[in-house]
């Protein structure tokens, strides 16, 4: 039975997989129709007809992950690393009968590469669905507090 703790554990586990760069296991957390969305506007409603920084399906996420390991991926020489510092997720919906599970998690995200270190703050919104006994990501939305600022390269996942 999926309860609030299952959702919270799932979110911590997801961050841990990103921090330890277990990309394939991270991809496995996604539902086949899952999306990773990084809006570019305040309280954005539409990922497609409003501009986004990222709105990617599993195919595109696989491309990213495979690229990270590519022999000729020069922007990963040296490699990037990341660190997620999460606030305790706030459960928005936990409705096993309807199969709807949503949570919102404030975070500070750090991405480093070589001597560079960049820090970002925002909120992650997870929409999860139950597949068998497990949860899968239907939508992971990351809203940066300063979505409108110009950034340098963001190569990993928040």
């Amino acid at each position, binding site marked *: 039975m999926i309860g609030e703790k299952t959702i919270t554990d799932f979110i911590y586990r997801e961050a841990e997989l990103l921090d330890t760069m277990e990309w394939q296991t991270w991809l496995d957390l996604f539902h086949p129709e899952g999306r990773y969305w*990084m809006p*570019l*506007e305040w309280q954005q409603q539409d990922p*497609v*007809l*409003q*501009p*986004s*920084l*990222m*709105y990617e*399906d599993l*195919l*595109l996420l*696989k*491309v*990213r992950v*495979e*690229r990270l390991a*590519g022999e*000729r*991926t*020069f*922007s990963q020489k040296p490699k990037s690393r990341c660190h997620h510092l999460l606030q305790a997720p706030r459960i928005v919906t936990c409705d096993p009968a309807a199969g709807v599970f949503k949570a919102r998690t404030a975070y500070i995200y750090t991405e480093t590469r070589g001597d560079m270190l960049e820090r970002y703050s925002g909120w992650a919104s997870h929409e999860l669905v139950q597949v068998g006994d497990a949860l899968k990501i239907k939508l992971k939305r990351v809203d940066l507090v300063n979505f*409108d*600022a*110009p*950034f*340098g*390269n*963001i*190569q990993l996942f928040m």
Partner: protein
Amino acid sequence: MKRYGGNARAIAALVREAEVHRDVYVDPEIFELEMAHLFPNSWVYVGHASQLAKPGDFITANIGRQPVMASRHTDGSIHVFYNRCPHKGVKIASEPCGNTGKFFRCPYHAWSFKTDGSLLAIPLKKGYEGTGFGDTQANEGLSKVRNVVIYRDFIFARLSANGVSFEDYFGESLSTIDNMVDRSPEGKLAVQATPIRYMHTCNWKMLVENQTDTCHPMVAHESSAGTAVKVWKREQGDSTETPMAVQLYGPFMSPYEFYEQSGIRIWPNGHGHTGVANSIHSNYSDIPGYLDQMVAAYGEQRAHEILGEIRHNTVYFPNIMVKGAVQILRNFIPIAVDKTLVESWVYRLVGAPDKLYERALMYNRFINAPTSIVGHDDLEMYERAQEGLKSNGNQWVNLRRLYDGHEEQDVTAVINGTSERQMRNQFHAWAKFITMGMDKRIEAAE
């Protein structure tokens, strides 16, 4: 150590026929001179009239490093001013865009200005009686940029009082903007999306040159576009339709021969474009209903003419690039000698199906965003160049590909698409516009 200021000859010597000296990318003094001379002497993009739909609407921008703003006046006309209060210099507008109502009001001492920039009121005005205020520049209100041309809703300005006229400066290169606008069945574009902003730690000219560098995609983007093609081949199963995303990435991997025959066209004053015969944008799927709309609007022949012109990147010297076929404009805004802010705008084709807008927005985030894997490939190269150029072993950047020994300058020509001639064309314009009037201005100052 000042070596270049006021020395037009030393500056011109940085640009050889087919080589440029690294100081054009790394020397802070050269950057200052670009800000003082090159940008004011050039016609620079300020914004799009659709961003100023109603009276009182305003936008802010930079020409070189100078803050300017444009506004829609009560009578419908558009005005461009320097964004600084005539009193003590406070910026009048601090947001990228907005509506000021009937007038601008400086937040410091409440001087107010009509939306055409003229002085409206000053609190305690009698304190200026008999002070000679009427003879000062402040009495005129916000200082106007007088050389402004709005071409098919694209607002351009030249800060220098004297220089090349808009028509002579751009000439036939305006055909790319024409084509982009004509792609709307109503002949109209609209800015509805905030731009994607991407900070680059490199000189602004590296980005401009890269727009017509056709020998890098299959190399530098093997990691992104190449991987996209590979993953799709593996994952596609029996699906016959290539997703829009793969259609956008795939052509970056086209072989040298493709770029060779697709061609480059150069124009006078440093403008030019890739993709003359065809381009990486040529093979996108048709969007249902769009051709019918275009035929209804323009007639069969004209509609096909418009949609058959599928240029790749058009560089408008000095610092924008336009993609007519996917309705994108990239603005390479110089911040410092090694820092450039790139703002990438999408225009919606008014009256066209949503799918076209969806594709343009997708292209923009795939290629031009700080989260874009193609962007990561490119920025890595610029950063390495910015570092590498500090080396004294060789102080020249080589731009000799397909140089035939006696190139005419400021001409229109169509050439092999892997030529570096458009980069040479840009640097010829660079030397011309940075030194233009330089000696005279220095005499006047002395």
